[in-house]
């Protein structure tokens, strides 16, 4: 019980500070999460951390829910809730304020420059993240073939994406990957 209380405080401090440090997205602070959760606080071992990371990547929802799992391992359900809120709120409030500025600046030249100029950059970043993901996971030729077929299907037809991902999951489940 006493440990749980201490762990809750560690959870709160760790994730509320990582929230504001996660510039560039949640994935940028994962090495620091690993350092604290595995090395400093010994909430879990490295293998468990890697497995939880894989679960959070593949499970539906934002992959930042990794912190929910870490909080759960550190201090039960209360830890899970606290970790999630601590990770979302500080950055969320900041982003909300920026979004207010954004909507008030509808007529400013900066906003129209961002809208027009950032679009090609975003396309490049999205392609890069698809590329990097497919290289990082243990993507062998069968997984590549499946990704290629799904990409073709999704780009050239109006097939509902849920059918595409569901079909791919089924193929994996049948052990064909």
């Amino acid at each position, binding site marked *: 019980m006493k440990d749980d209380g201490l762990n809750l405080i560690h959870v709160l401090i760790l994730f509320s500070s990582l929230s504001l440090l996660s510039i560039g997205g949640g994935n940028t602070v994962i090495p620091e999460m690993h350092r604290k959760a595995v090395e400093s606080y010994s909430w879990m071992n490295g293998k468990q951390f890697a497995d939880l990371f894989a679960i959070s990547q593949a499970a539906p929802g*934002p992959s930042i829910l990794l912190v929910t799992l870490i909080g759960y391992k550190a201090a039960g359900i209360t830890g899970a809730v606290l970790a999630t809120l601590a990770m979302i709120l500080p950055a969320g409030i900041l982003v909300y304020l920026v979004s207010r500025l954004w909507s008030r600046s509808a007529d400013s030249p900066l906003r129209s420059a961002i809208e027009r100029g950032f679009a090609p950059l975003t396309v490049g970043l999205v392609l890069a993240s698809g590329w990097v993901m497919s290289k990082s996971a243990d993507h062998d030729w069968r997984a590549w073939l499946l990704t290629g077929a799904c990409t073709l299907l999704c780009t050239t037809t109006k097939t509902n994406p*849920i059918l595409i991902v569901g079909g791919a999951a089924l193929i994996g489940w049948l052990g064909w990957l």
Partner: protein
Amino acid sequence: MSDAAKSRPSLTELAFTFNHISLASFGGGLSAWSREVVVVEKKWMSEEEFLSILTMCRILPGANQVNVAIFVGAKFLGLPGAGAAVFGLTFLPAVLILLLGAAYFQYSHLPALQDALKGAAAGAIALTLSMAFKTGRKCLLGAVPWILFAVTFFLNGILRWPLFGVLALTAPLALLWAWPKAK
């Protein structure tokens, strides 16, 4: 206030929509799902507004998709809208991931599920790649956007430069190119 806003959604609709986006994204590919729903299905934002917000949301601290939900929710209904969108995005997936996590710590692995998730990940990567193709067809008109796109992809995807290094180089050029000419 905004160009593409058809009609203003209610708090419940925001929460349900982001819940739907979130639950659909097993295997990953959440950005592609957000675009599919926010731009294509609901027409809450234009393609360009969505894409520019996506990159701003990557620059800002916080999880990218949580930030997108905040931008979309706040655009229509201010702070309550942002709250509803983030709640929709995270609540059920958090419950689900806790169940998965609890099962994992109970049995120490999730064999059948791991195979299925591996397949789903291959499919979700496809959604991300196809989002790049679909948006590229619309946005990459002309030589300058193509160069901006190609340099960004090359630095971030091939050379693996960190986001900030890439944007420090490409964002000023992009803004310079896109700055509205004096009327």
